[in-house]
């Protein structure tokens, strides 16, 4: 050992003194319960799920048979895959696009110094924190083709109401509308905060150079918002892929609204008790979520630059 290293070793305290041991014990005492809970109920299920997905297993039954990848094979070769993956894709793209676009538009309005904008900001954010079940019930009441206020208004205009709850396409449209209604305020508030962080000097310089509001937005504000847009894209996709409450309460049978998430629920807990098959679907969902997260984090790291 060289002199310098020996000196450093002497300068430090002995490797594990009683005092350090006490600190370690305290750390365990303070942090261990939480860490144990996270390991037990967040990380362990990821592995267990993969194992379950290889089983032919009826939920509640004490016997299960290992069938390898048959559950995955059944999903991808069966009639469900196209429908469920298609529904998931449509639901995700429209809800993410809808809430981000409307949120952005709303943020540009909220960014102006208007009377009552604080109230408006709070109002549009509110649905985001409300129970999905409560919100779903309210909108079921509004969309009801017989007694709903929407049907009533259409009647006054001499039109009939669409069968929102019977036609699969309309059911999906309806749930998408309500989902966007509930989530656009989140996008709006985050975009608003990002817009308010834009350097005022840049905007003034643009104004001096004769740029109009649209030009300023396209050339300056939008590029500056790109990190925020990527963050929102990530979080809203994760959210949409996990959407459950509204689908369950508005369209319990999942007629037209069975996304991957809802299929995983229905297969295990919707009366079929197909635990293994459900675990396979949940695993597929997880792999998609993981891939999206990784891809987007990489993009976020490398590609997003300030203008």
């Amino acid at each position, binding site marked *: 050992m060289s002199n310098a290293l020996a000196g450093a070793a002497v300068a430090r305290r002995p490797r594990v003194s009683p005092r350090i041991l006490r600190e370690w014990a305290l750390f365990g005492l*303070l*942090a261990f319960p939480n860490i144990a809970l996270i390991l037990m109920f967040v990380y362990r299920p990821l592995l267990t799920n993969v194992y379950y997905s290889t089983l032919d297993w009826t939920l509640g039954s004490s016997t299960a048979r290992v069938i390898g990848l048959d559950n995955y094979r059944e999903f991808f070769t069966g009639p469900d895959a196209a429908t469920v993956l298609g529904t998931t894709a449509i639901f995700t793209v429209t809800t993410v696009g809808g809430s981000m676009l409307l949120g952005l538009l709303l943020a540009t309005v909220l960014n102006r110094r208007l009377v009552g904008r604080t109230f408006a900001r709070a109002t549009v954010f509110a649905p985001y*924190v409300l129970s999905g079940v409560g919100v779903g019930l309210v909108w079921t009441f509004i969309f009801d083709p017989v007694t709903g206020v929407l049907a009533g208004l259409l009647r006054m205009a001499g039109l009939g109401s669409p069968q929102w709850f019977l036609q699969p396409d309309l059911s999906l449209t309806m749930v998408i509308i309500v989902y966007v209604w509930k989530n656009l305020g989140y996008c709006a508030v985050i975009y608003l905060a990002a817009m308010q962080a834009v350097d005022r000097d840049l905007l003034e310089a643009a104004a001096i150079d004769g740029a109009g509001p649209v030009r300023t937005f396209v050339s300056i504000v939008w590029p500056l918002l790109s990190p925020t847009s990527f963050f929102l894209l990530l979080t809203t996709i994760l959210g949409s892929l996990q959407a459950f409450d509204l689908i369950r309460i508005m369209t319990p049978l999942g007629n037209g609204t069975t996304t991957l998430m809802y299929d995983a629920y229905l297969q*295990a807990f919707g009366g079929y008790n197909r635990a293994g098959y459900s675990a396979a679907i949940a695993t597929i969902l997880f792999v998609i979520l993981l891939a999206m997260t990784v891809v987007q984090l990489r993009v976020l790291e490398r590609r997003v630059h300030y203008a």
Partner: protein
Amino acid sequence: MSLDTMPPLAATDVAPPVRRRRNRRRPDDGGVGRPTLLGTIVGGYLPLALATLIIALPLVWMVLGSFKTSGEVLSQHVVLLPHHPSFAAYSRASSQVNFPRLFLNSTIVTAAGSIIKVVLAITTAYALVFVRFPAKKWIFLGILVALMVPSQVSLLPNYVLIAGMGGVNTYWGIVLPGLGTAFGTFLLRQHFLSLPKEILEAAEIDGAGHLTRMMRIVVPISTPTIATVALVTIVNEWNDYIWPLIITNDDSRMTLPVGLTLLKNVEGDPSSYPILMAGAIVVIVPVLVVFAFLQRYIVAGLTQGAVK
């Protein structure tokens, strides 16, 4: 989507909601050009009013609906205001599903879950910031990644585990799997890192141990951030749906959202809407009231990390 699964990207400190006065010179339209009256109305107030109405009207409709009679709901004409406002729907809802019991269950689950989660978040964050331990960075990373793991994926394994332990239809069965808190730990850790080291060093020199420092110094000066974590946690626990839905099977332990599902199944015909609206109000209004008064904390907590 659960509210606390937002993966925070930028490790910012939680802003205890401080309102800043805007620059007075700031032009109205984002710094570009001089606003005209027409422009302000068409491009500003009109969309603002429209958005506010679209968000607020369904909630107003819910309140009105709950005071209507079945006849008014079934009427072919749109009845805006209930002609004979009545609490009939509320009492009928109570006779179909044991509402006081559901309310009590929700309150117990929310209170127990939130208190434990906030305490765990405080102790974990304190340990991560102030207590010596090897590889703390990796432990924190593990907690951070847990924020990204969708809770829905863990549904079946957790159900099998909790059911196997006899947790179906019990309070602890509802609360336990959600207790590990990544969100609160993350938010509080970022805040604790920003605290001035000098105060804690001074306390240490005065002979205060870790627990004293945590309880007497760190917690009191972090109240706004702890309040933010607590509020977001409370709202999440109150709204939580999918887990209580699968782990309970009768209304002795069901929470409000689960009970409402039952009510919707029992009351299949359209005349039951006033009852369902009464139920929706019971689950929505408490959160709305809390939000109305403390929205700055809640918004700060939920949008934390999104913007640098």
